[in-house]
């Protein structure tokens, strides 16, 4: 049983391909090496055997059999190897009466081998009993009396020479196979890098969509990836379309509900009888529900692939607008915004939070409003922003602040006398997984601090 925590991330495509290719390469290069080694070994032994056979003939040619069957060494041996002691090649001609040895064989103890019958050749590789390569050759020599006498020629060769040859060959072989292997692995890496480049491009483009610098996967991709790219683009389109359809539906719902509410309200008689005030309070409730619930629904559709919004621009717009609305109050509004601060969420949500907070500050403040905004993580601006709005009004008492914030959480439980704005702010803050605090400002009034997380 494996729990999700134990589950390991699958290896990357690149690493998989490299590892597989390297394994196949190692096995096949190994097999090639083995085959070449075996073949070389065999052919070396075959050529050794041929050399030894020629030595047998040399020995026979140098042998003279006397009439009584005694063997005599007739002349010098033309192969210098047989003439030099310790040369590595030793020969013996053995008759029934005597034997003679090649001059090289001084001090060599010949192994005891069973002699072969006339006409037979026996080649043997070194064993634990016999440390030499041996070639035995049986000949029947006709004596003048017509008898046949058996002559056995034995040639021994030191295996060291062949082993050295083999070692040199193996060294060369492994070097060249190793070089071939390295070249092939490098080539493999190059192929993979080139071959996987479109995938990397797609990854980068998707990151671009995430950061908002791209709207669609627009580049041309290899044929194999086209269906995926098409589907992805389709998905993006659908998401966008769904989102705007959803938003439009909510919007028009809000719109179409509010106008009849205005009519109801405007048609109420001025003298507030009990019935009229019941209708009035129902209208209030409905208005509150529309503003908070519908907004919550719209806020939760915020796009995960939102483009950045310049915070300074939006705050300036709001300040200009509010200066118009509150032109009679002559409010001094100061903005203290981190340079080039960008909000990676929905512009309308940012405007909504700032608009409501600034509006409250203008409404309840006494002519002085200050707004500051900063990133919450300087190393990654996408994490989110913090906003502080303060005024020099009477401020909000601690218990009242709690109630105000609570109200946003439970939109159906209303507290008399508080504006709708803060409730909407709380809805948006919740949708952004953020925080909201009310404190005392250095200006004397309320300080509302809001954190909006975009990651």
């Amino acid at each position, binding site marked *: 049983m494996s729990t999700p925590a134990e589950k390991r991330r699958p290896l990357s495509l690149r690493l998989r391909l490299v590892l597989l290719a390297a394994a196949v390469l190692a096995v096949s290069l190994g097999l090639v090496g083995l085959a070449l080694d075996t073949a070389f070994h065999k052919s070396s032994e075959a050529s050794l055997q041929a050399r030894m056979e020629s030595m047998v003939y040399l020995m026979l040619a140098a042998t003279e059999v006397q009439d009584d069957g005694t063997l005599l060494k007739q002349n010098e041996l033309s192969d210098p190897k047989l003439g030099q002691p310790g040369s590595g090649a030793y020969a013996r001609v053995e008759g029934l009466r005597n034997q003679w040895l090649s001059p090289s064989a001084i001090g060599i103890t010949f192994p005891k081998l069973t002699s072969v019958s006339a006409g037979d050749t026996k080649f043997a590789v070194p064993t634990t009993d016999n440390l030499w390569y041996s070639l035995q050759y049986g000949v029947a020599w006709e004596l003048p009396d017509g008898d046949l006498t058996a002559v056995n020629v034995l040639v021994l060769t030191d295996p060291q020479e062949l082993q050295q040859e083999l070692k040199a060959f193996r060294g060369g072989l492994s070097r060249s196979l190793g070089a071939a292997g390295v070249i092939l692995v490098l080539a493999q890496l190059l192929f993979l890098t080139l071959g996987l480049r479109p995938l990397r491009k797609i990854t980068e483009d998707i990151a671009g969509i995430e950061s908002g610098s791209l709207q669609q996967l627009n580049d041309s991709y290899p044929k194999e990836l086209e269906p995926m790219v098409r589907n992805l683009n389709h998905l993006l389109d659908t998401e966008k379309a769904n989102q705007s359809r959803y938003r439009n539906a909510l*919007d028009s719902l*809000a*719109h*179409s509900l*509010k*106008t*009849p*509410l*205005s*009519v*109801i*309200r*405007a*048609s*109420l008689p001025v003298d507030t009888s009990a019935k009229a005030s019941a209708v009035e309070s129902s*209208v209030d409730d409905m*208005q509150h529900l529309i*503003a908070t619930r519908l*907004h919550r629904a719209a806020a939760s559709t915020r796009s995960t692939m939102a483009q950045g919004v310049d915070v300074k621009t939006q705050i300036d*717009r*709001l300040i*200009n*607008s509010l200066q*118009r*609305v509150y*032109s*009679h109050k002559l409010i001094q509004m100061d903005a203290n915004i981190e340079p080039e601060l960008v909000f990676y969420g929905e*512009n*309308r949500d940012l*405007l*909504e939070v*700032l*608009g*409501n907070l600034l509006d409250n500050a203008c409404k309840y403040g006494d002519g002085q409003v200050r707004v500051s905004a900063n990133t919450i993580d300087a190393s990654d601006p996408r994490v989110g922003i913090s906003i502080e709005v303060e005024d020099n009004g009477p401020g909000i008492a601690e218990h009242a602040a709690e109630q105000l914030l609570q109200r946003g959480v439970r939109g159906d439980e209303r507290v008399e006398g508080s504006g*709708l704005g803060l409730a909407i702010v709380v809805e948006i803050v919740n949708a952004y997984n953020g925080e909201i605090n009310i404190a005392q400002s250095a200006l004397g009034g309320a300080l509302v601090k809001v954190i909006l997380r975009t990651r």
Partner: protein
Amino acid sequence: MRILLVEDDISLQDSLAGILREAGYAIDVTGDGIEGLFFGEEYPIDLAIIDLGLPGMSGIEVIRKLREGERRFPILILTARSEWQDKVEGLESGADDYLTKPFHPEELKARVAALIRRSAGISQPVIEFGPYKVDLSSQRVHHNQQEIDLTTYEYKVFEYLLMHPDEVVTKTVLSEHIYAEDADRDSNVIEVFVGRLRRKIDPDGDLNPIETLRGRGYRLNPPTPA
């Protein structure tokens, strides 16, 4: 004071027009953006109330065109879209205030009165003019702590003159700002209103705040105490 109301929802249009008329304003009403723009450009409007979602031409477009045409009267936007994105767009296009639907009629009246006051450069809801004290929101006129009972039209005339003190106001201008376009105007009626107003605010005839400039119109002069 003459108000242009541009609202496409007929029932809301009706009730708002009723409420504003009751409050003593002359109302021009339309449900269409293009017509609203025409009224705003051609009529002597003192304030416009414009719904943002209009057929023909959007409210924002109407406001922008009015401001491009140098029409400076205050504009109050009505919007069902309570979002700041819409409010900011409306205010950026040149509106002075907004009201989100659904609203209390009292709120609308208060905003309208405040905007008219602001446009006349008056920041307080109560104007003191010599011995007169005029509360623009409750529309009450006092003379030395004594309330003067004025009819709607008498009050309208007095209010308009108060907003334009030391200015010559012709009978035509008065009637234009007191009556809606479709009303039957008669400058003699204005004379009657001014006559009655004079008798009510200056029963002894010693203050003479409203001066008649023959052939030109009327001028409100700071009363000289006897």
